[in-house]
């Protein structure tokens, strides 16, 4: 954690001479994010736990690896892909999926829990603005969890490759097939892009919506976050017999539609090209979503300012 030393050592003499009562915003955000991680240890424990369980299962499967690799020469490239690469993609999916769930549940509680246990009175007795508080809470699902998922996934994929290599070498087999089908560096790059584009930017309005509900609702944050959306879809169905809203939510959340290149379930190991990146960043849905995210967060800041303990 080097941010702290950076923030503190940012020429203290100079800043003191200017204004003895100023604390840089970066330092306030840094400590606010650390505070969130102290409180919500599941943010990193859950993906770590999922990764550990998966790794354990993978290690058990390694007993069968030498046999599989012996028969690999007869397989088509597609079957080879399934045999060798799929566990690596699956590891990434599991870690990202758990990260997504943790992020949602984190957001549901983030601005509700502090009002419920009245600790908001303590937080508000400190010189930290509502904007800084909400931003630090939004940073957990939008920045911290994607980066953590990336680090954990890369670590577990390296471990998987190392253990597979050791097993094959121990059996006197060649590792060239394994290493050519598991391009770790390229996979990591792809994963990072997927996490930043999909989990951070594409999902940002979802997290912002849930944070806003968490700042607003007195109780049952989960229901308040979900039921209005269900109600809108239901009304649309009854009134117009269409399902555009549901389809819209599905595109935001799930795998699938053409115009959403990257979501949780459609991670592709195709090489990352400028074309795919440009296509994603020219999707209107991305920018409309980000505008909504900013609006939801602005309302959340307002609510944090206005609402007291419950």
């Amino acid at each position, binding site marked *: 954690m080097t941010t702290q030393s950076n923030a503190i050592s940012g020429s203290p003499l100079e800043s003191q001479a200017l204004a003895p009562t100023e*604390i840089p915003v970066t330092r306030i955000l840094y400590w606010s994010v650390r505070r969130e991680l*102290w409180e919500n240890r599941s943010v990193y424990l859950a993906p770590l736990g999922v990764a550990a369980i998966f790794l354990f299962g993978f290690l058990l499967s390694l007993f069968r690896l030498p046999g599989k690799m012996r028969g690999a020469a007869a397989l088509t490239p597609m079957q080879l892909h399934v045999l060798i690469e799929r566990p690596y993609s699956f590891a990434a999916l599991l870690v990202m999926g758990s990260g997504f769930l943790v992020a949602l549940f984190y957001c549901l509680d983030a601005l509700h829990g502090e009002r419920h*246990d*009245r600790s*908001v*009175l303590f937080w*508000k*007795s*400190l010189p930290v*603005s509502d904007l800084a508080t909400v931003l630090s809470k939004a940073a957990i699902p939008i920045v911290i969890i994607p980066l953590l998922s990336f680090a954990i996934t890369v670590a577990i994929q390296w471990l998987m490759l190392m253990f597979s290599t050791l097993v094959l070498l121990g059996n006197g087999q060649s590792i060239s097939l394994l290493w050519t089908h598991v391009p770790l560096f390229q996979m990591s790059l792809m994963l990072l892009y997927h996490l930043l584009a999909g989990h951070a930017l594409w999902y940002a309005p979802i997290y912002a919506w849930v944070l806003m509900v968490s700042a607003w609702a007195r109780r049952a944050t989960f229901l308040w976050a979900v039921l209005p959306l269900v109600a809108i879809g239901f009304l649309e169905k009854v009134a117009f017999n269409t399902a555009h809203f549901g389809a819209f939510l599905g595109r935001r959340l799930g795998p699938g539609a053409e115009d959403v290149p990257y979501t949780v379930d459609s991670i592709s190991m195709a090489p990352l090209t400028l074309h795919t990146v440009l296509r994603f960043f020219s999707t209107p849905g991305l920018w409309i979503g980000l505008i909504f995210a900013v609006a939801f967060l602005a309302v959340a800041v307002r609510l944090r300012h206005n609402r007291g303990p419950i």
Partner: protein
Amino acid sequence: MTVIEARGLRKSFGATLALDGVDLRVEEGRILGLIGPNGAGKSTALHAILGLTPYQGELKVLGRDPWSQRDQLMRDVCFIADVAVLPRWMRVAHALDYVAGVHPRFDRAKAEAFLAKTSIRPASKVRELSKGMVTQLHLALVMAIDAKLLVLDEPTLGLDILYRKQFYDSLLNDYFDGRRTIVVTTHQVEEVQHVLTDVMFINRGRIVFNCSMEELEARYMELTVRPDRSDAARALKPMHERQVLGRSILLFDSGVSQNVDRTQLQALGDVRTPSIADLFVAILGSMPTQGVAQ
């Protein structure tokens, strides 16, 4: 310097008026006790001062508008709320880290020195501490902040007498230095009487009494009247009379009854300065629509 200045402060929750035109002025270096029955508007007034609730009227705290400038204001203001509000999941060491991280006027060494005198360990979580210890922890955090105004809302509620005594002793000996200003609300009036420099009674959202302790001592007299002189004493128009163990205790306000003086009363019985609690009962009890049950 004026620390708090309020004019015509109003706040309503639906149909109930919590603050009904409060005028308030607190100068630097005062320790003001805000005394009132439950639901009188004490906490609402404090929350307005702390920027926790919106209000109508004019309010300036250290020259700032608390509602729109809470975060800047909190560099110079500290607050301990009515119940322990420290987050229960937090470790003592984390609390120190965090406050040191975000507060420009926090002196960590000072807080640690204070905690060293208690049985609170840095690795403990707040949920593992007793209520008294949580208050001690909060006090340690607050006393290590070089603030101009400290607001205490029932800080000793639910604590046993040892902790309560300790709390006010620490506050006076280790914290208060004549430059700081303290506003405190409490039900344990007797325990703060010797601490205060000013006292204010609030009832139904209005300030009904506002007086410095020196003025209170000079102006109000409590006479435990000798049985044979009670008629003579009553003729001097006491503001309040109560019976204790068959003896009449009369309260005089020399500001209203100009002809009453101390030597005159001493001829009728024992004279002393009334306690804030007795004065409170006398003043609020004399208000027509308010039944004082406390």
